[in-house]
Structures are given as structure tokens and as C-alpha cells.
């Protein structure tokens, strides 16, 4: 899973591997990440996510090799 900006700072890392069974939802993967504790527990329960570089809802199913990213509210420009 990829973490950016504030979330990367909270977690102390921008890239982390979380083992979940195939078919797990993104929501469950975020829960598993937060359960690692430490800085990960400070991440929100329902962050905006991107699945394979597209915004996605948290109920999406994950498949082998998917790229899941947790995105803070955006502030480009």
C-alpha cells in the first residue's frame, strides 16, 4: 500500500506491504494496516483511496498485485 503526504508522515513510511487474502475489500485492507499499530493506527478509518491509480470506493475487492494508495484530501495548484 502507498501512503502520501500527511499519511506518509503519520505512518513513518510511504510504502508498506499488507498481506490479505484475495477478495478482501479495500476497507478491510485499510483496517489491517491500521491494526499494525504505531503510526499506522493514526491513519483514518475511511481514507480516500486509489486502486490501481484510480479513485475507488472502499468496498472494492482487491486482487493479486493491485496497487492500493491512501490519499489525504488533495491540494494541487
Amino acid at each position, binding site marked *: 500500500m502507498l501512503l502520501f*503526504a500527511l499519511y506518509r508522515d503519520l505512518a513513518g513510511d510511504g510504502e508498506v506491504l499488507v498481506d490479505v487474502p484475495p477478495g478482501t475489500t479495500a476497507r478491510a485492507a485499510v483496517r489491517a494496516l491500521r491494526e499494525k499499530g504505531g503510526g499506522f493506527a493514526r491513519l483514518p478509518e475511511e481514507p*480516500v483511496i486509489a486502486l490501481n491509480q484510480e479513485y475507488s470506493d472502499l468496498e*472494492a475487492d482487491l486482487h493479486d498485485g493491485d496497487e492500493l494508495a491512501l490519499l489525504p484530501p488533495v*491540494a*494541487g495548484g
Partner: protein
Amino acid sequence: MVDSFLTTAPLDPGSILDRLGTPADGALLLFAGTVRDTNEGRRVEGMRYDAYGAMAERVLREIADSAAGRWPVTDLVVAHRTGELRIGEISVVVGVAAPHRNEAFEAGRFVMEEIKSRLPIWKQEHYAEGSAWLDGRIPPVPEATHE
């Protein structure tokens, strides 16, 4: 011509302007966003732009294509800087060429509003006494279609 890119190098609006327009275009529009020295009363010393690079390139292209599909513009170029910027440096450039000014203004405005609403980029302001990530906007996320 539609082009979009992210870069860590300083943006040169002149070189983007040079790429715009044909003899049929009566309007060349160029917008540059810069890093301000104050924000909400606080003195800012610099700004870091962090991006989800691969996704930001994809979303920026979608925004540019969407604007070019919606208004009859001849050329549209949008570029966003990432990394550490000093005060006054240019963070974003939008250039539009169109036969008439209205579509150039509207397409350019649309591109900037879309960038603000959904480009996966984040700003960290630097102050004399530390740094802070700026509050952002929740991008539009698709509704759940799964049961």
C-alpha cells in the same frame, strides 16, 4: 494539440506560450500559479509539492482531455511542478489557444478548478518554526457498486 506533464524542474511559461496557437486563433491564454509568501496570516518561507506521480500524470491528462473535449480549443497545455519550491516560483501553468477568448478563459478556468478538486498532489508549507501539510479537498470518489 493537448499536452500535460509533471516536472521537478522550474516551469517556463514563455516556452509554453510559444507552443500555443495557429493563425486561426485569436486568443492565447496563459495562467501561472505561484507560491505566496503568506497564508492565513502566517509567513511562508517555501512550499513542498508531493505527488502520487503516476496517478497525477494520468489525472492531469484526463483533465486536459476533458477540457479540450468540452470547449473548441486548438491547443491546451497544463504543467504542474513538484518538489521544493521557493516563494514566487511557479507551481502550475495552464496555456490555451482558441479562436475566441471566451472558450480560452472557460477551458483554462475549468482545468484549474479540476486540478484543485482532484489532482493527487499535496502541499506542505515551510515556516521559520516548522512545516505543515495544508488542508485539502476530498476528491469525487465513485459510489460503491459492490454488495
